[in-house]
């Protein structure tokens, strides 16, 4: 039995490896803000949100659409989804509290603990089946339909009856029937627990009564070592069945664990959706296209992390960058360039893991990997100069690149004079484009930005942070040529308005 809510045909592995640059991504895109909004202080939800978002870059288009459908069902039926999640959590918590970490040297006690744990699980499985019976018709996605159909098929009344029958018989009221052969030294070997086909209570007794010859060995009343030996013999007989039962318990536990893990992502989405809806921020399901295509067009795309921390509504941007490989963003300081770059990265991650995106509409090609190269604080240990540090980071990125990756640069290579910085950046970016990368570059390097403009490339687009004539900022980006000033003077004047 599988949940299969994250993939059509495979489990979601919580232990999967995250991309090597997960720390940089988390820091540069402020991902913790997003994870926290999804988690609502639940550590497990946080963990799952983090894993799903950061590992989403490997998903193919089908997986993205599969999850979008499941998520749409969740948005329609939030309380039913939270109920199912609750059953999984309850099953796991109860097992953990009562039976977890339990380890015994005696098959007898392994068996009896497993019987108890299974009785609890059976109850939880019944609850799941009841939910499936009651609400399956409200769900349309392939993921949920399959899950509910499976629950109905696998967990029929007859099956529950069979399980309960086993659990009763495993208490061995009529004694333990074991078959054996002779091993080395004529010691008993290959002990196998046997079940008679007959159901009547007295079946064991009857078999042994009817067909001779039967010989009986009896342990004398005060023979303590004899009783120990007898119970070891019994334990050897039930060893395999105890193992089978304990393993079944583990399997059912891992079914619940999987169900919980996969639902946790959608519960996180529900949490985030609730907060955004409260603020009146729009969301939409994005239209992903193949990684070889070049598409990036959206309306009212906003930075979801900024939105989560602001009281008022945040500014969204409209851009059509279809068929572009290079997006260069220039313009006024504090004009919303960094926010825009972050919104690009966040939307990409959210789209590729199957979530909705913070925009009125959004379509983009998927990328095979996402790297950020942001300017960093001065190295505290002074181990290397700043440009040195930036270039070494770039070098590591290059080690890990293959085509159709997306790179976000934020004021990179500016730790030197403009001419040199521009030349370094130019050489790097030209090479990246030739190798099939998609690049977003926020920069004040006029020579660098203008150099690309002069080449009149069809695959580049230039965005500029808007400045109104009076020096005010709209935080909107418009398509426009790079300017030689970033309006630092405006800032200066804002602070020292009296002078000149």
């Amino acid at each position, binding site marked *: 039995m599988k949940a299969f809510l994250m993939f059509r045909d495979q489990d979601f592995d919580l232990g999967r490896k995250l991309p090597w640059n997960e720390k940089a991504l988390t820091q540069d895109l402020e991902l913790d803000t997003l994870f926290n909004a999804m988690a609502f202080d639940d550590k497990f939800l946080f963990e799952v949100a983090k894993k799903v978002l950061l590992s989403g870059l490997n998903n193919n288009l089908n997986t993205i659409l599969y999850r979008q459908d499941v998520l749409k069902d969740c948005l329609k039926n939030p309380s039913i989804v939270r109920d199912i999640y609750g059953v999984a959590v309850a099953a796991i918590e109860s097992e953990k509290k009562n039976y977890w970490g339990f380890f015994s040297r005696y098959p007898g006690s392994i068996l009896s603990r497993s019987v108890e744990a299974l009785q609890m699980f059976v109850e939880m499985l019944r609850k799941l089946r009841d939910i499936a019976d009651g609400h399956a018709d409200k769900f349309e996605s392939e993921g949920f339909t399959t899950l509910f159909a499976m629950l109905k098929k696998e967990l029929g009344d007859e099956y529950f009856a069979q399980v309960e029958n086993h659990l009763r018989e495993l208490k061995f009221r009529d004694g333990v029937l074991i078959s054996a052969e002779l091993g080395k030294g004529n010691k008993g070997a290959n002990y196998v627990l046997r079940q008679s086909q007959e159901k009547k209570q007295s079946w064991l007794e009857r078999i042994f009564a009817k067909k001779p010859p039967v010989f009986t060995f009896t342990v004398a009343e005060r023979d303590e070592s004899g009783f120990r030996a007898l119970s070891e013999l019994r334990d050897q007989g039930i060893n395999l069945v105890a*193992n089978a039962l304990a393993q079944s318990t583990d399997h059912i536990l891992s079914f619940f664990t999987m169900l919980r893990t996969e639902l946790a992502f959608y519960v996180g989405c529900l949490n985030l959706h609730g907060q955004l809806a409260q603020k009146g921020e729009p969301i939409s399901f994005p239209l992903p296209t193949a990684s070889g295509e070049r598409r990036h067009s959206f309306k009212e795309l906003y930075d979801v992390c900024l939105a989560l921390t602001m009281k008022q509504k945040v500014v969204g941007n409209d851009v059509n960058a279809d068929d572009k490989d290079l997006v260069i963003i220039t313009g006024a300081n504090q004009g919303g360039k960094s926010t825009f770059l972050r919104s690009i990265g966040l939307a990409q991650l959210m789209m590729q893991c199957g979530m909705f995106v913070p925009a009125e509409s959004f379509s983009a090609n998927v990328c095979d990997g996402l790297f950020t190269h942001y300017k960093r604080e001065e190295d505290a240990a002074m181990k290397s100069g700043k440009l040195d540090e930036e270039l070494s980071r770039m070098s590591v990125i290059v080690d890990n690149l293959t085509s159709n990756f997306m790179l976000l640069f934020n004021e990179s290579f500016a730790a030197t004079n403009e001419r040199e910085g521009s030349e370094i950046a130019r050489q790097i970016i030209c090479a990246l484009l030739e190798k099939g990368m998609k690049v977003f570059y926020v920069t004040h390097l006029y020579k660098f930005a203008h150099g690309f403009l002069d080449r009149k490339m069809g695959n580049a687009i230039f965005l500029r942070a808007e400045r109104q004539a009076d020096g005010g900022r709209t935080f909107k980006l418009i398509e426009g040529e790079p300017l030689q000033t970033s309006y630092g003077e405006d800032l200066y004047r804002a602070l020292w308005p009296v002078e000149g």
Partner: protein
Amino acid sequence: MSFHSILFEKTDGAVKKETPEAPVFFADLNLDQTIDAVSAWKQEYNLKPFLYTSLNDIDAIEYRHEIFQDLENENLLESIKSFAQKMRKMREHLAQADKFYYKYQKESWFLHAVDIYCDAINSLEQDLSHAGLRSRGFLAFREYLTNYANSDRFRSLLSETKKVFEDLSSVKYSMLIKGSSIKVRRYETAIDYSAAIEETFDKFKQGAVKDYRVKFSSGPDMNHVEAGVLDLVARLYPDIFLYLENYCAGNRDYLDETIGVFDREIQFYVAYLEFIAIFKRAGLKFCYPQIVKECKEVYDYEGFDSALAYRLITEKSSVVCNDFHLKDKERVFVVSGPNQGGKTTFARTFGQLHYLASIGCPVPGRQAQLFLFDRLFTHFEKEENIENLRGKLQDDLVRIHDILGQATSNSIAIMNEIFTSTTLQDALFLSKKVMEKIIGLDLLCVWVTFIDELASYGEQTVSMVSTVDPENPILRTYKIIRRPADGLSYAIAIAEKYRLTYDHLRERIKS
């Protein structure tokens, strides 16, 4: 050609096969360490009595060389090892059978022992039949083994054993354990309950999970409840257990004596080959020495002290090899030079090589010709003994006297730093006298001494000198080379280091 022994082609009464005590020179030559290392993992075979026994016949030595050479074939060696392992396992089973208390248990262990024995015989017979054997010893043994394996005695042992096994493995019974009683009966088909459980819960299977099976002590012992059940099982299958009883009684003496002896004696070769494999892995060489009796031209190239080298290899240090040769009238190596330079090691090496050759084994070195001695004498400096009332010098002389009294022209003598407790002049005088006697006897001899004058005694003496590293005279090279003893080697080395030798100075001082 009939087979007697893998160690001796002929076993008439005149040949001494085993010696209980180590020869007296063992400690001086550190051969005790070597032999301990050779036999360390083979205690159960009690190989030392063989390793303590020199052969005094070139043909007997060659008999062993041939067998060693056959065993250099990895496949054959593996076959022998596998045979030995089975025989050991057989003995362990017999020991267990002896130890146990319950009858049916003892009988089963005996049965297993015989089964292992049969397998050992059959496998070895098969292995030898397509091994390219050349040695007299193995060829004769193979013939013996083939005859034995095809004998009626062995054939019927084999078929009886097989039958008992089949019978016992057909025994299957059921136990119903309830309260304090166990009811035992022949097995009748019933559902495997753990399989049924697994099937019921199969739908939840999610990949690997923990193994909850409890490990029961799988020791061979049996408690009285198990034994009690076994007695009942025997009553369920009376014919099978009666046959088992008769089988055990009838095959008490199943083990062939010649095979038993072979199993022990072949370990002489296996042990030695395993021993020298350690050296070969470290890049050192062993060779089959040419053994000579009539002439005394002996040599060995790239030889080493096996006891020292064994220790150095375990410490992962490097081993220094040395060469020596005697030709024409040369008989005596006089070894001098700096202390701690490997002089004693050289002397021991000479003795070890001759001893190991005399028991028919390969010796350290790339190529060697060695002398078939009748006796080997050593005289190494001993601690002063308070109970010995003689002074040290006198003690030295008494011992030398004994040696010279017993030695023949076919003997070897190895002497290490004698006459140290007297003046140089005395020592020189005494040494010359002893040397005279040694040469008179025509002994092969190594003599480690600090008296340089001895080195140039005559045409029978060869001077060997320990050397130091010219770059760093503090370091010993452990190289012993054939060179006049000028007492200068140390000083020369220091001069080399400072480029102040004659040759250097000629170059450095421009005219």
